[in-house]
């Protein structure tokens, strides 16, 4: 195990970043009062100091508390939407690629055409239509409504090549039913690939949520990372030189994306050993 991890530095690096973030959230949740993530709980616009290590924003939020409360919220959006996306996507992908025929044509066409439409724009229309302030969970569901398109496409391509293998043929001749072959033969062999797809989807969902939030369509009352950046932009914090206001969310978001990205790269290496040649 340790020997393998040494050969897969990307996975180690990614897991280390995410582990560090997890540690920050756990220690933070135990030691920091997240009530201070609400406006008017601290003096406004304090640069980082002993009392407020990350500083405070213009509305008087303690930015350390905002990060402690907001990071899990942003991750929650990503994980709900990512899991739903890959779950529904795999269902469609396995059905389409295993049974082929008309159902495959329909699913493939929907995924292909859906993917040429920029998702953020459709999400904007949905978010604007619903009006009112969204909750974090509603946000996750909205993002999940499009998050299955890309997994459907990539998983389908993998299943297509896998279903021609000899052992699938043997299973079929043994009289296994379609769902049985999908769950007992195909899925276990695709687990590393599905895991990599899941991590990628979580990352894409977080990106979409942060995007919506920066445009002002997020959960206004929740101190998520994206909403923090919205307030940064809203108050023109950069021109005004309040550097600590955007540094904290920036570092956290970059850590999230880098961690997820390197985990995907590492999982890809497990899923597709041919890549090892190039390393």
């Amino acid at each position: 195990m340790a020997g393998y991890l040494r050969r897969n530095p990307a996975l180690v690096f990614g897991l280390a970043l995410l582990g560090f973030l997890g540690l920050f959230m756990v220690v933070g949740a135990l030691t920091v009062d997240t009530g201070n993530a609400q406006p008017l709980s601290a003096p406004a616009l304090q640069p980082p100091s002993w009392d407020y290590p990350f500083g405070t924003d213009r509305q008087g939020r303690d930015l350390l508390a905002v990060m402690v409360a907001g990071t899990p919220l942003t991750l929650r959006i990503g994980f709900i939407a990512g899991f739903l996306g890959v779950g529904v996507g795999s269902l469609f992908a396995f059905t389409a690629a295993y049974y082929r025929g008309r159902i495959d044509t329909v699913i493939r066409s929907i995924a292909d055409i859906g993917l040429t439409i920029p998702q953020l724009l459709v999400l904007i229309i949905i978010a604007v239509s619903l009006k009112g302030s969204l909750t974090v969970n509603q946000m996750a569901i909205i993002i999940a409504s499009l998050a299955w398109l890309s997994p459907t496409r990539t998983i389908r391509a993998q299943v297509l090549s896998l279903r021609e293998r000899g052992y699938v043929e043997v299973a079929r001749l043994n009289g296994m039913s379609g769902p049985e072959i999908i769950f007992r033969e195909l899925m276990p062999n695709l687990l590393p690939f599905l895991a990599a797809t899941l991590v990628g989807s979580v990352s894409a969902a977080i990106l979409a949520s942060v995007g919506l939030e920066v445009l002002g369509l997020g959960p206004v009352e929740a101190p998520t990372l994206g909403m923090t950046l919205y307030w940064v932009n809203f108050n023109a914090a950069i021109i005004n030189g309040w550097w600590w206001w955007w540094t904290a969310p920036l570092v956290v978001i970059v850590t999230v994306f880098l961690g997820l990205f390197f985990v995907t790269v590492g999982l890809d290496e497990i899923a597709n050993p041919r890549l090892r040649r190039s390393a």
Partner: protein
Amino acid sequence: MHAVYIARRFLVFLLIVWLAATLNFFLPKLSGQDPVRTKLLEEASLGGYVHAGIDTMVKEYQKRFGLDKPLWRQYLTYLDDMAHGDLNYSIANYPRTVVGMIGEALPWTVGLLGVTTIFSFAVGTILGALLAWPRAPRWMRWLMPPLWALHAIPFFLLGLVLSWLFAFRFQWLPIFGGYSAGANPAWNWGFVLDVLRHAILPALSIVLVSVGGWALAMRGMMVTTMGEDYVTFAEAKGLRSATIFSRYCLRNAILPQTTGLALALGQILSGAVLVEAIFGYPGIGALLFQAIEENDFFLIQGIVFTVIVALGFATFVLDVVYPWLDPRIAYNRS
């Protein structure tokens, strides 16, 4: 054969246009809100009190806008308007039309995205090909980690850092807008330079991130291509290294890369929307941001529709060009 292929692609394009219009029409209906009533109540509350006859007023306006007709009739009318390029009036900036406002913003975005996308695609592809080539200079290996790291960051986050660094800290470049506040938009050198200076930071935040993505994808394809038998054969024939690199490896690895470009256009655009919003660059993204702030629903709808159609068209063009790059496509279609 080629005509059939083009016709089929064009059909897909029309499908996308229809889909965009349909989403635009039905998604807002799902929320079950009545825009006329909302607007009238809003106006009434501005006036200080709510009229008793507001229900009659709502009915009257619904009749005027054709909202009393059955849903399918409204839908057909809407499709007809869309087909004629009638995207309605802006709510917040009445009497300006949505088409007019988009028309003003579109050249900015097309310019910014066109230049940055082509530039980063070209540079990234060449860089990726060299990264996979064993005879490339050794120092190029050191480029990989920063490229990976940059690639994982959203455009606009890099934009934040760049604008702080170059516009606030060093004050080398302007921080906001598409041209200086006092400048007079005209075709002269002063103004063009001013526009270019304002475009540097938004462009840089897109290019630095995208180059990494293209380089990574291209490197992966090159590695696969270099393992093919025909490359080994070319080496055995004693062909020059440069010939193998450009005619055998690069030529084949660029095909999936181009497909990737068609697929990535949507993502690039979504990223650019946020970059424009952050920099106040006067393109489609900033207009969309403004429309969201002002709750200008028709403008939001119009922008979403226009952008989807424009991207669908760009994808169509790429699809048409593609067989020219890869002759197998046009002839092997079943």
